[in-house]
């Protein structure tokens, strides 16, 4: 049993300690914002925040997260009231198939919490671990810039 603070509420999870956080989120908690891409920490589709830092939830076992704050896409806003970064992605229409976008939003959220006014180079560097195969990079880039100004 592991208790984490998930999107502001304490949640107790009954899973083996080596279960990846991503599996807990999607299979046990039905939080499907984080996506399964590669399962190896190489694509970034599963990115969530742990204590405000972006992590690949597919390679983080639940056992190391006891007592920690985890934020998923669902923790940033709702369809009615999207969060700042989510709103910027919608306004820039920064998605094609959209599979990678939750990961990009979480990665951008971590950047803007740490660096509220990033340079273009800092945005590019921060987003480097995440992959998009549709080629919406320039829209994603503009969305992060827009979110920083919001």
């Amino acid at each position, binding site marked *: 049993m592991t208790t984490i603070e998930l999107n502001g509420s304490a949640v107790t999870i009954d899973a083996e300690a*080596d279960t990846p956080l991503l599996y807990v989120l999607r299979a046990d908690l039905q939080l499907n914002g984080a996506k399964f891409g590669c399962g190896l920490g190489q694509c970034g589709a599963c990115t969530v925040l*742990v204590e405000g830092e972006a*992590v690949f939830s597919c*390679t*983080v076992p639940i*056992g*190391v*997260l006891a007592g920690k704050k985890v934020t998923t896409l669902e923790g940033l806003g709702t369809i009615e009231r999207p969060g700042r970064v989510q709103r910027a992605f919608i306004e820039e229409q920064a998605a094609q198939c959209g599979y990678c976008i939750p990961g990009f939003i979480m990665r951008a959220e971590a950047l803007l919490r740490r660096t509220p006014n990033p340079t273009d180079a800092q945005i590019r*560097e921060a987003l*480097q671990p995440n992959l998009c195969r549709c080629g919406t990079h320039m829209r994603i880039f503009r969305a992060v810039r827009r979110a920083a100004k919001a």
Partner: protein
Amino acid sequence: MHSPFGTIYSTNITPDRETGIGAWSLEVFARAMREGIGKDGEHLYPAFPYDRFQRTTDEDIAALYAFVMSLPPVRAETPANKLVFPFNVRGGLALWKRLHFNPAQRGQTTPGALGYGEYLVEGLGHCGSCHSPRTRLFGEDLQRVYDGGEAEGWHAYAIDENNRAPIPWDTKSLAFYLRHGWHPQHGIARGTMGLVTDDLAAAAPEDIEAMAQYVASLMKPPSPARAARARELLRAPPVEVADQGDPGAIIYDTTCRGCHRGGDMPWDGLPLAWSIGLVGESPRNVVNVILHGIPPAPGGETTPMMPGYAGALDDAQVESLVRWMRANLTDQPPWPDVRKSIAESRRMTPSMLLFPPGGTRFDPAKTP
């Protein structure tokens, strides 16, 4: 380049006449390489390793000069160095040179391939610039050359008889590693060494072979006890965790073990009992890799990688993991200063992580 006394900017060495070295004659170039003196007679900072380059032959200096002058000139002003007093006073370098600069020792000293390897390693290769401890005045400690040093936030392992690699290096494994940036029994080059092996991929095979032969001669053959332990580790690397009582064991078991069991190297992780990182003099490299991982190549080339755990693991967790691995996967005593390494590693900037721009070289056809 980050240093303990500030930031030093590498200068423009394209043949641009105003901002580069386009106006330099061969003689001026040779003097800079061997004596650390710039075009206008100023002393150069030893971040440029002229203390090592001084033994470069006339022939090699001329070849380097011809190559550099063949590059397209780029107009680029070098930013001013940001050094603290007294290191920002160039005149002080004259004193430094008197203390740390040996009289010129040119060319090859030992005949044959071993001597050629010595020339490359001691000179242009300047391996000792990172792999030797520094004195309090930041010169190479000439009493302890190759006993291990520091390089921009990474520990450079001893490459003499004090090298502690669990699987002892030999000429063949060194040559493979220098050429490809990884070896199935030693893992992949990372940090500043990743940049070195990335460049060496373009070196002539006979040059790599000569360097490997010379470094192997510095390391000397392993003692019978060390060789026996290596055979045992290779036969059955300890990977599984028997005792789950320690928090570090739980983190290792749930986070590391799944990949670090060998097999299809370098895509699978090295069994950590084979890692020189865990037996090394400092925990710094292990901590760097745990926190920052091995990033994939930025151009999307197929390369080994490891996700970093800076976000997922807090300082206490990283410390318990490092302590458990050191105690259970090596025959070495505990490190005294793990927390300090963690704090320093968390402050590293991406430019200090310095992974090879093209990613680690991998040629399955050449796997030994």
